[in-house]
């Protein structure tokens, strides 16, 4: 059997890293990306700076793309989707469709790097008035403002004097169906709180939280500086409702460390929305026959000891396709997926 290429579905950070790894080891990768550019969510959602190191998101994604563009071992198919797959580990046949054509490609292994989508705060609950009040926005909306270096209230174009983050929106919630912690929102909110204070030094910033989940170095690299150097106020207890008050907003909740209700005026409210499986993740799971967990992320099968194997032999998943993941997780699991996919291809060649 000839040595077949490895299919990488998704051109975000995880997909690009997987393809880079495959090519660097001398194997062939075919990257299929639905959008017309590489870069994935950081690029498409207009991220400003990466968490936790404040690296320019656009620059970082360009650098990752440049590492595979023009590499003879990597074939990049933009504006394309996988619509069907057959075969088994070592010898799959997949149908790749773009706007004009569809063709069938033989691949030896598959890496699904189809990522996540941001929770839509209007999906299940209207409690925070995301679709009612212009000045209630999400982390993603704020990220775009920070990217433009223009922090203003959407309602009136003025710089906010008081801005708060409400954590865990769409995460850790049985009723919504997302029982998991989305892992990155605490860090992103802390990072953004610093950027808000840098952009608008007179703006008071508050973070209402259940518990701040600042993994590893995020604690000392973003959480502590936000409080110690940027005077961001952390208040334990997430708000329950946002109401209109005058031309501003009234945030109501309970301050749990004080054991009393709180009702505080704000100019802007930022909802720290979590992660859900992207449409691509859901579709690819079906096409490749990978079991999904109860939240529709792609299930990995061997627990902590193998973070990329799926229930379909020869199909691996990495990044946020398997569950909430930060960039560091995604890059690491992409490398693991590349390694295991290569092993699958080598085994197929050896067996023939």
């Amino acid at each position, binding site marked *: 059997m000839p040595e077949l290429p490895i299919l990488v579905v998704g051109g975000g950070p995880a997909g690009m890293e997987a393809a880079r790894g495959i090519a660097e080891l001398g194997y062939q990768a075919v990257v299929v990306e639905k959008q017309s550019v590489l870069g994935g969510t950081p690029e498409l959602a207009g991220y400003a700076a990466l968490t936790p190191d404040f690296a320019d998101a656009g620059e970082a994604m360009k650098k990752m793309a440049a590492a595979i563009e023009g590499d003879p071992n990597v074939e990049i198919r933009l504006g394309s989707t996988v619509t069907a797959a057959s075969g088994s580990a070592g010898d799959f046949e997949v149908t790749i469709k773009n706007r004009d054509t569809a063709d069938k490609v033989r691949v030896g292994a598959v890496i699904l790097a189809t990522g996540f989508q941001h929770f839509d705060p209007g999906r299940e609950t209207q409690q925070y008035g995301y679709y009612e009040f212009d000045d209630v926005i999400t982390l993603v909306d704020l990220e775009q403002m920070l990217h433009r270096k223009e922090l203003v209230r959407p309602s009136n174009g003025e710089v906010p004097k008081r801005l708060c983050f409400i954590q865990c929106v769409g995460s850790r919630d049985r009723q919504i169906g997302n029982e998991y912690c989305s892992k990155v929102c605490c860090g992103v909110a802390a990072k953004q709180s610093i950027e808000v204070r840098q952009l608008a030094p007179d703006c008071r910033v508050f973070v209402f939280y259940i518990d701040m989940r600042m993994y590893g170095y995020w604690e000392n690299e973003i959480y502590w500086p936000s*409080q110690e150097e940027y*005077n961001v106020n952390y*208040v334990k207890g997430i708000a329950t409702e946002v109401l209109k008050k005058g031309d501003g907003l009234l945030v109501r909740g309970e301050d749990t460390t004080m054991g009393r209700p709180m009702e505080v005026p704000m100019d802007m409210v930022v909802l720290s929305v979590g992660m859900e499986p992207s449409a691509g993740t859901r579709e690819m799971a079906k096409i490749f026959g990978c079991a999904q967990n109860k939240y529709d992320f792609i299930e990995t099968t061997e627990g902590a000891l193998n973070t990329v194997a799926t229930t379909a032999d020869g199909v691996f998943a990495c990044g946020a396709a398997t569950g909430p993941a930060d960039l560091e997780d995604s890059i690491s699991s992409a490398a693991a997926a590349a390694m295991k996919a290569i092993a699958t291809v080598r085994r197929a060649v050896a067996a023939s």
Partner: protein
Amino acid sequence: MKDPTKVANVEPERIVEKEHVVQDGMDISGHWNRMFEQRTIFDYTPELLEKVRAVDGGDSFGYCYQCAQCVPVCPVHLVGDYGPRRIYRRVQTGEDLFTSPDLWQCTTCMNCLRVCPKEVDMIQIMPAVRERAILDGTVPAELQTVFENTAEYGNPLGESPKKRAAWTKKSDAPVPLMKEKKKADLLWFVECYPSYHPRGIDASLALARILNHLEVDFGILGPEEKCSCDSQRLAGEVGLFEECAEHNLKMFKRYKVRKVLVTDPHALNAFRKEYPDLGGKFETVHYTTFLAERMDELGMTKELGVKVTFHDPCYLGRHNGEYDAPRNMLASIPGVELVEMGRCRENSYCCGGGGGGMWLDGFMSDHVEMRLSEQRVLEAVETGADVLAVCCPYEVSRFEDAVKSTGNEGKLAVKDVVELVVESMGG
């Protein structure tokens, strides 16, 4: 008619009332049209936090992330409602620390800093904010009196500076004055309470006898000595501290002092940590550290047959790391059985005297259920000890009062470690 300003929970500024209103022919003037503006239940006041942080030494106040480890180990909280985490939150929600009673309750015992993962340093924060409050004139009256006494007489008790060495007349063992002796290996810095307070003097007499028995070449400053002023400094009177320090340093220089023996752990703290910045170049040793190594030379023969519990002074233990010397002393006294209290060594409970607390009993009584010294005495009684041994001059008087006020007179004696030593040396 109810006074609108006294309606429960309605702040006057929230009451909206039109003086003359006629509606549908009906006169609804004044209170008949009274409305209340919607209340903000409470707001956050980052500016009050930043005000504390802006003071030199106050910055770490803003580090608190509310883990609350400090509250259970705060000695004031055990008898009241206190602790750095709570103070942080009160300030974040509207309390001005500069004018709040919260400012004066901290004894700077350092047990909060010991457990604080963020190193919120109340030992820096409290004195720094207090210094500003003193400048603004918002200092509790009893503390103000002590500052004035110290400024005028060189001691917080308001005693005559000339009589600072009067206690030595009661001593059988000679206690030479540096003024006469001029030169000695060791300067014994006696400090205020051991010079003037009757029970402090008892300990001084015991120490004088021991030093003579050991043939130590020592002298005291007597009237040339002023309060080390560390507690006044921690209570916010930095200017006064510097004045006294300059005086004492001048005396040390005059007698070419190289080594100082202190009775008072607060003096130890000042001499080790503050005086060097003011030009002090000398070694300081607490008397327990000094004596612990020479216990076998004291000829202690009398079996005391007592059960003793020991109270670690905050400024000897947590602040300066000496936990073993007093215990070693006690262990070498014949017939002393040492039993520890639950809170001991690093987690020792504060007697309430530090950071100005020594002079704030009246003020504190409005804020705590019982004195810290009373809480500590109850802990000592619980061990079944006959004697509560101490080695800080604040403690003898505080604990003896607390023994009486808690109804334990006759059950528990309070003695300085050196008093027990002298008893065993044959009275």
